[in-house]
Structures are given as C-alpha cells and as structure tokens.
C-alpha cells in the first residue's frame, strides 16, 4: 500500500454496502434496550459506579476519606444505627458526586470491606436550586451528595469480598517477631522475643493505614500513627520523639504494654492487627541516647512536688511535672525504682537493663529519688503534705485479694505478686520437680506460671471460666501453653489440703450459667459438679489486688473517699483533698502500665491547673 495505490472506481461498489443490511444493528437502543453486544453482555461485572456501604459493618475509620484524591468523601455523624463493635465510630462516609472520580481507591483501602461500588452509573438531575453556598457537610444534598448506603446494593460492581480480601492494597499479614523455640526458652529467663530488625520494623510499619483508631483505644492516647509513620520512613529518632510526647517509658511499654491499641487496629478486622507494641520497642531500642531527643528542660520554677511510690505512675508524673518546671521528689519504699514493673514482671518479658534505660532517662532530668524511704514509716505523710506544694500518690496495688477458701493460711500458699517478688529478688531459685497450682487467668497468673516453668516446676493454671474469657493477653496464653503450662478451664477452687504445707488442691468443675442481669456468664458450682483433687506443693493465688494506703491518716482516707478498692479522682487526677493527687493502679480500674503513665501525665497537668488557681486566689 502506498500513496499511489488508489481504489479503482467501480460502478457496483455501492452494492457492497448491501451486505450490512443483513447484519445485526450495531446501535445500542438505549433507553429502550440496554447494552447487549459483542464481546460481553451488559456492562462490566466490576464496573466502578456509585458507592454502596454496609452501614452496620462500617466502623467509620475514615480511611476512605483520607485516601480520596478528590476530597469527595466526608465523614458525617450518624445517629440511626448501632456501631459494629466497641471501637467503631458513629461517623459514616458521604460522597460528593460533584467531586468523585470513581477511582475506587476508597474501596481498596476499606479495611472492613463494607464499602463497595455498584454498577449503577446514571444520575442526571436538574439543579432544583443553585447549589447552596455555604455547603455544610452535615447537610446531605439530594442532588449529588449522598450518604453511601445500600441503595445500589442490588447491582454490585467493583467489590472486594471475602474471597479476594488479601488482594487489596492493604497488607493483612503481620510480620511476626522472632521468638525463641519453646523448648529452649522454658529453661532460661533470658528474653525470648527478639525486637524487630530495621527491615522487619519498616515492613510492619508500612502496613499502618494511619487512621488513628488505635489512638482512641489507647488509655493515654499516644501519637501512634505519627510514630509508626516515622518508623516506616526509617527514622526511629523522630518516632521516639512522638512517643515521648505522651509516654516517657517507651521501651517498657514496647515490651509489656497491654496494647489495647492493637485490638482497635482496623487492619485487624479482616487480617492481623499491626504489632504496634513491638514497633514501639523497636524505636526505643534503636535510639541509644534518649536525652538527645527528649524535650528541652525548662528552668526550675521553685515549686516542689512529692510523688509517693516509684512505679510508672510516679515516674510519668515526675517526668512531665519536671518538663513543666517543677522540682519533683520520688519516695520509694524498696531499694530500687520501678514498682510493679521491677518486682511484678518477670525478666524474660522485661529485662531489667532495658527497664533501667527508660528510668534512667527520666531520672536524668534531675528528679530527686529517695529510695528505701517508706512513707508512714520513715517519713510522715502529714509532713509531706506540709512541706510540698502538691503530693502525688502512685503507690499501686499491693494488698492481694484472697481466695476465701479453707486452707488458705497454710504455708506455701502465696499471693501472685508476692511470688513474683520472690522470683525477681532471687529468694526463690529452684522449683525443680515441684507441682504448682496457679489460680487466676490474668497476666499475673501467666507470669507466675511461666516463671515457675523456668524454675523447673510442673504448673497447672486453674481458671473459673473458659480460656477465651481469660483477661490475659492471648499471645501470653498461647506462649504459656507452648511452654507446657496446663490450663484447667471452669475450675472453681474449693479447698487446699495439707498439715503445715499445702499438699493437695481441690477444685470443682463448674458450668456456665448466663447472667440474668446481662453480664458475663457466671460459673456456678452445684451438687452435681465433679470435684477434682490435684497434688500441689505451691498454690499461688493471682486473682488481683487492691491498694494499700495505710500510711495515710484515717481521716484523710475518709475525706478522699477511699472505698477499699480504689481512690476516686477526677480527670486531672485530683482527689477530694486539696493538693493531693493520685494516679496509677490505686485509682485506675484498668490496672496496666499505660493507664498508670496516662494518669501520671494528667496529674502533672492537674498540678499545673491547681497551682495556677491557688496563685490566682492569693
């Protein structure tokens, strides 16, 4: 074919056109008939049309709004539906089809899979009035701003369903930290979980969607998306700076935090949640000198504060109060700081040198510490109240709850925390061949059981409810059973036998009865319940503890309204007594380190508010 190649003129040429008379028409006779032509029938099976949203399944995380390149998605408060789980928000996406470009990126990043696209695409409208000027996001325009709901659900298009959920742009698989083999780790107290390497941490951090659902779940609302993003960027120092804004014990929390954030993590809805805790441990352990990044220290403002107890609450209180310019003195009864972290947590979970790294960083902000000084014994509480501008109680819980069964006063029947103290201070060195029964299902019970395994004992945990009801971290439970800890479900303690020492432990196998008042099902022992006896050299009761505030004069105890379980405080940690603040386990229902840190930090702010007010009055 070339430019000289011209079709010859032919008088019959038009007749060629006749053959098209007998062909099927090419035209789609819309609106009379729909598209049904070569090569496929109807429009695409995964067409990207208007959105549909399963409002019950949606958790309002707002990732669709954040990923939208056209700013078409607004999260709008809804009142007409109940949230899917306790972390779900009440906002739902509303789409502006005057913006939307139908790119389906919102569907790709929807962690629940509730947001989908339909094959409906026709929407023509006469603008009834001109588009309102001050377009309030709450007002859903009927013209082109719609809340995505089930309107178009009958004609599904671009859908990410259960089958191809791992095909989304979200990475659902967790990078598991390396753990020592159970056979090896059960004979040693050395740490068995390895902190992430840089590659692992970056890979794990890159799964974060940055929606901040975790922030609301965290008792102290850490800047989680920010610090994870910094790790993903490859900058642990920036990451630690973010952590330090609300948590001065990053490495400790990185190792042993109860990580409610991970429960709230939206990636966990269809896959495995981010290992937020291990990421924190990564950035804390990868920065050698915390002080380099810790905040600028202001000059002392001359006001003096005292903190009773050397646990996380007091340390956090001390650190943030110091940042505000106060002089802080911590009174600790034991010979070392750390409180429950020092004596309650076994070193295979939290090595003491790692713990001291955090604590030393706090102390280096020039906080005074008085060790071996028990308030009430060595100094008087009233003196503290007199000589300091404000006093913070961060004593934690040290009075154990009792089993209230026969034989509890026998020797070798000990309380969980006492047992852990004995393990940690070295009085209990060897339990080889001993049989140990642990009562309880919390983290302390797991610590006791696993420490005993490491000391050579044969351990049985007896818990009143089912394993899945245990308040302990599921990972802990799994690791414990890997290490050979036997767990008895539905076991209600009946009696401990023995003359001087405990010898046998009897429990009854209960049945679960639904609670009429709507609470958790209750284990009930009746006459038919079988009773089981097992031999026991030690019985450890790890069923919780209450604060011991005997050092406080009774009249003040009454004044602050102490009910035997906790000290009531307001949002700033203020008790009912002027100048007396409280935090940590003694006032928190949620007895964990991060709540303690949070209460310490809030109390520091409370002090600021309180002293400012005092001054104003003077």
């Amino acid at each position: 074919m070339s430019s000289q190649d011209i079709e010859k003129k032919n008088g019959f040429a038009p007749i060629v056109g006749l053959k098209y008379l007998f062909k099927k028409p090419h035209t789609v006779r819309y609106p009379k008939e729909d598209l049904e032509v070569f090569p496929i029938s109807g429009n695409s099976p995964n067409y990207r049309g208007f959105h549909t949203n399963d409002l019950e399944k949606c958790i309002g995380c707002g990732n669709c709004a954040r990923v939208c390149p056209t700013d078409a998605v607004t999260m709008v408060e809804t009142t007409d539906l109940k949230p899917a789980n306790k972390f779900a928000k009440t906002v739902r996406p509303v789409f502006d089809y005057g913006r939307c470009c139908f790119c389906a990126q919102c569907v790709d990043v929807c962690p629940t899979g509730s947001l989908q696209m339909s094959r409906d695409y026709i929407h023509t409208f006469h603008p009834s009035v001109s588009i309102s000027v001050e377009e309030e996001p709450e007002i859903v325009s009927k013209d082109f701003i719609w809340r995505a709901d089930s309107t178009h659900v009958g004609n599904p298009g671009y859908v990410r369903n259960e089958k191809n959920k791992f095909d989304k742009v979200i990475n659902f698989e967790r990078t598991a930290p390396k753990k020592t083999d159970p056979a090896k780790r059960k004979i040693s107290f050395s740490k068995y979980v390895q902190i992430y390497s840089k590659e692992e941490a970056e890979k794990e951090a890159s799964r974060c969607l940055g929606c901040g659902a975790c922030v609301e779940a965290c008792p102290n609302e850490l800047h989680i998306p920010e610090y994870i993003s910094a790790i993903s960027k490859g900058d642990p120092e920036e990451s630690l700076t973010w952590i330090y804004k609300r948590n001065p014990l990053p490495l400790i929390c990185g190792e042993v935090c109860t990580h409610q954030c991970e429960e709230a993590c939206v990636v966990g809805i269809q896959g495995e949640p981010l290992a937020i805790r291990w990421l924190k441990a990564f950035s804390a352990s990868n920065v050698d000198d915390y002080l380099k990044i810790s905040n600028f220290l202001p000059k002392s403002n001359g006001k003096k504060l005292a903190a009773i107890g050397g646990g996380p609450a007091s340390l956090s209180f001390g650190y943030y109060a110091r940042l505000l310019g106060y002089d802080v003195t911590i009174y600790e009864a034991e010979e070392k700081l750390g409180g429950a972290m020092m004596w309650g947590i076994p070193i295979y979970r939290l090595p003491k040198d790692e713990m001291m790294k955090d604590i030393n960083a706090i102390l280096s902000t020039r906080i005074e510490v008085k060790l071996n000084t028990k308030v009430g014994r060595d100094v008087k509480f009233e003196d503290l109240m007199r000589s300091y501008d404000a006093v913070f109680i961060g004593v934690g819980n040290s009075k154990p709850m009792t089993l209230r069964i026969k034989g509890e006063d026998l020797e070798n029947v000990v309380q969980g925390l006492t047992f852990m103290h004995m393990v940690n201070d070295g009085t209990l060195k060897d339990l080889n061949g001993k049989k140990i029964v642990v009562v309880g299902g919390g983290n302390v019970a797991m610590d006791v059981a696993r420490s005993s395994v490491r000391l050579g004992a044969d351990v049985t945990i007896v818990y009143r409810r089912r394993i899945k009801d245990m308040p302990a971290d599921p990972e802990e439970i799994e690791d414990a059973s890997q290490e050979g800890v036997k767990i008895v479900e539905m076991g209600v303690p009946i009696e401990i036998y023995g003359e001087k020492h405990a010898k046998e432990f009897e429990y009854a196998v209960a049945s679960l009865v639904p609670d009429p008042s709507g609470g958790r099902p209750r284990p009930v022992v009746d006459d038919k319940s079988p009773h089981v006896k097992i031999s026991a050299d030690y019985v450890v009761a790890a069923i919780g503890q209450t604060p011991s505030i005997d050092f406080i004069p009774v009249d003040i105890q009454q004044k602050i309204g102490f009910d035997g379980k906790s000290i009531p405080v307001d949002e700033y940690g203020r008790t009912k007594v002027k100048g007396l603040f409280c935090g940590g386990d003694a006032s928190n229902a949620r007895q964990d380190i991060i709540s303690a840190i949070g209460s310490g930090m809030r109390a520091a702010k409370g002090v600021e508010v309180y002293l400012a007010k005092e001054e104003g009055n003077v």
Partner: protein
Amino acid sequence: MELTPLNESNDDYRYYELFIGPNHPGIEGNFSYILKMKGHTVAEATPDPGLLHRGFEKLMERRLWTQNLALIPRICVPEPDVNEVAYCMGIEHMAKIEVPKRAQYIRVIVLELARIASFLFGVSGLGGTTGHYTSAQWLIGDRDYILDLFEWLTGGRVYHIYQYPGGVKNDLPEGWLDKLSDFLDYMGKRLPEYDKFIFKNPIIQKRTVGLGYISADEAIENGLTGPNLRASGVIYDIRKAQPYLVYDELDFEIPKTGDGDAFSRILQRRLELGESIKILRQCIKQIPQGPYRTKVPNPFQFRVPKGSYYSKVESSRGEFGYYMVSDGDVKPYRVYVRGPSYSIGLYYATKALVGMRIEDVPVWIHTTDMCPPDFDR
C-alpha cells in the same frame, strides 16, 4: 465586461487574523491557533494553548504517590494507559520494585490495545475534517469494542486506573483473552475494509499526499517523536531501541513509510496497527501464569526513595515521558510530564502551517494526531 482575476498580489487580499479553535470542528480538542492569513494562505501561526490547563504538575505534588494514579490518566484522554504505565514504571525504577512477568505482559496488552483505540479515534477525526463521515461512524464504533474489553478488565470505560506500582490491580478475568482474540480476528477482517475506504480513497489521498512534508533532519531538529518521526524516515521506536516491559521478547517490526508527508503519517499509524495486532496475538500465546502484582506498602505509607528518573513509553503519538523527583516522602516532589504532542503542536506547527492553505490546516492537525490535553496538562 472582463473581470480581473483575483490573485495574491492583488491588494484585496490583505492580512487578517483568523482564530481556528477552540470552538471549531476542525481542531482536535479544545485548542486554538491564531492564524495570520493572507487570502487563503497562512502567513503566521501562533498556538494559543492553556484552554485545557489544569495544573497537573502542581496537583500531583499535593497527592500521595498512589492517589496520583487517579489523576494522571486524564492527561491524555484518548490513550490514558500510557500515562499510568509510564508513571508506574518510573516509581518501580526508583523504588526498585520487581514487576512480575505476567503483569508486564498484561501491561503490554493494555498498551497495545490502547494504541489501537487511539488510532481508531485519531483517524475517525480525520474523517470529520475531510468530510469522510463514514470513517467516523465505523472507526468509533469499532473502538467501542476495545472500550468494552477495557471496561470488563478494569471496571472503567475511559479511565481505567488499572496500573499500580508493582503490577496491575486485577488479574485478567476468565475468558478475557478469548474475547480479545475474537476481537483481533474481527479487527483483522476490518482492516482491509479500512484500507479500501480510507487509505485507498481518492479523496483522502488527494487531501493528504504531499501535504506538510517533513524531512528526517527537520523532524529530529523539531523534536518530533513516534509515528510522525518514523514517517519521515527515522526508524526509532522506544519499544525497539530501549525495550521496556517485555517488548524484547516479542517479535514485531517497525514499518517503514518514509515519505514524510501527511499521508505517510497516517499510513505509518495504520501499519503499526497491524504490528500491534501481531504483538497482541503473541502476548495471548506467551502470557505466563503467576502473580500479577508485587505487594507494595499501602497508599499512606508508600514512599519512594530519594532520587529522580525519566521514564518513558512509546505512545501512539510518540514519546510520553515522566520526569519524576522524589524526596523520599509519601508525595512526589515534582513530576514533569512530557507530552508527545508538545513539540509538534506548540512549536513545529508555527513553521509547518506557514504557507499552507486554510482548508489544509485541520487535515494537517489531524494527521499529526496531536492531543491538546497532553501538552496543556
């Protein structure tokens, strides 16, 4: 009475200004030339771009790397896929992401299909300017079959948003390749008909042969690329010279026309269409099984390491290039888009149109197959 014939030396032919476009059926897209005319002849041509300027390069700096995938297909409307592929290839080079073989084959299929679609669209436009409306009816109709295939594959008719760093978003649906094969058979039957009524058509030939001759040196000097360059005799195709994706595994030729006039420019495209069909048939045969995407971090954490790269793709109009600069963040630091029509539409036209008669101007514009959105951006 005898009339004096009007000729160009006659004073009645004064200079006057003529706006061709934006609202003119002879111009492609929303674009305008301001012509200074003397009689029927163009004395000076000034392009007036910016009617489609949307500030893509600025908008891309404000969006995440993957958010931009929704934006960039809009740079070149008739052939959006080249943008996506060039952009993703640039990211993959900078972030050192390995693309699975299957994904590379799928990309080649998408690119070649888009090339065919773009050809059909371009030549139908030529039909409009030469009064040859049958070609518009036929070619646009056939192009729709490609759009149907695209829609089935990607969920979108025009804007596919199908590429993703590391591969493509979905696998080929079941039975898609068979339909593609059917379409190629259909296309094979249609091509002789096209030849007959477009390329061997005396009207088209008379309007285009010898129009707007460009020599090889001139074409290089003026920055022409793609079929326009090859039609002048410079056999240079990125797919051959610097093979990307899996073009080095495929057997195809660069057709030679080499006359350098308007007719050889459309003929070049027509012949390359045949090669595209050949490539597609090979792809259907050779496409391997396996993954179609390498996992990359999610959009919020997707960072491209520091650096810069110029990634380019041979589109149906020429070299489509993306010069991308990253500062290691979640957003690009700068993206520069080199549209293939830039040099011909904004610079070469000012030379080529001079001396041309007014009725040839739209024909010339359509035979260069320029696409205003890609230089307006």
